[in-house]
């Protein structure tokens, strides 16, 4: 049996068991449209087909995409600006 260092025993986790942090995030489109959008950071193209469609999006692009909003109506009682996306997970 191979010996383990005291640090390995303390953590209780082998190096290969350390969970990888995903570099993507799942975004869902909240607008009723077919949307092709190019990530501002990575240049990747993402296609969403209809409200509720979900795509894996690079975290660097997602940060900007989550700030994408519809225009604003100044009509009384208007719900104001509405976002294109929200994070699923």
């Amino acid at each position, binding site marked *: 049996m191979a010996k383990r260092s005291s640090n390995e025993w303390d953590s209780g986790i082998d190096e290969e068991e350390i969970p990888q942090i995903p570099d993507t995030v799942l975004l869902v489109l909240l607008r009723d*449209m*077919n*949307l092709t959008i190019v990530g501002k950071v990575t240049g990747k193209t993402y296609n969403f087909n209809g409200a509720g469609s979900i795509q894996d999006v690079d975290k660097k692009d997602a940060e900007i995409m989550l700030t994408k909003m519809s*225009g604003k109506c100044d009509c009384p009682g208007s719900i104001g600006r509405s976002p294109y996306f929200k994070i699923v997970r």
Partner: protein
Amino acid sequence: MTLVTGTPLGSITAAESIYMEGAPSIYFQDYSANPLKNPDADGYYWGMSGTTSYPVFEVGCPIDVSLTENLAINEVRCDDVGVKDTVQQRNYLEFTFTLKSFFPFDTLTHLLKGGTMKETAPENKFGLGKINNNQYWMVYAPKVYDETAGDFVIIHLHRAKFVDAFTINMPFGDSWNISGIKLRAFADTTKPSAQQFATIVRSDPSVIT
């Protein structure tokens, strides 16, 4: 104040001196979505909540809004005495309005009975082609008549469709507008018979206690 001719005797429901003015807000959502109150504690179906699959659309700047109904009316005529009765059946309710707001196109395309909008920056596109006759909407039209107290009236149509021909007016020196927009609400047989076409709600804590 009683009349000099005398007011009716007995139990009377008096009128209120509260008046409403101006257009309600108008929202619509795919009929496949459930109303927010589905039903409420009293068994009424109304309200709207956007979901990821069924977002709510806001109609921007509606003007000249009216709600009418269409009835089948037939007289019961007996030749010896004339008309003895009138039989009525409600066919549909109809919201008619003009709107000034053309954007965004993902809302406009539904108002004009168009296809799904495509967005690829910097463009929005949608087509006007064959009309989808299987598309129905819930309609939610709230009107706040006392902003301070938060008193409001809501008209909720259960199963409606955009019908009739639109006209886009492009006048000189005035804003474009789209007239002839009609939302026709049909009977929703999944709802109780007394509220198949619509539910109308009033909330006024100072009066309804």
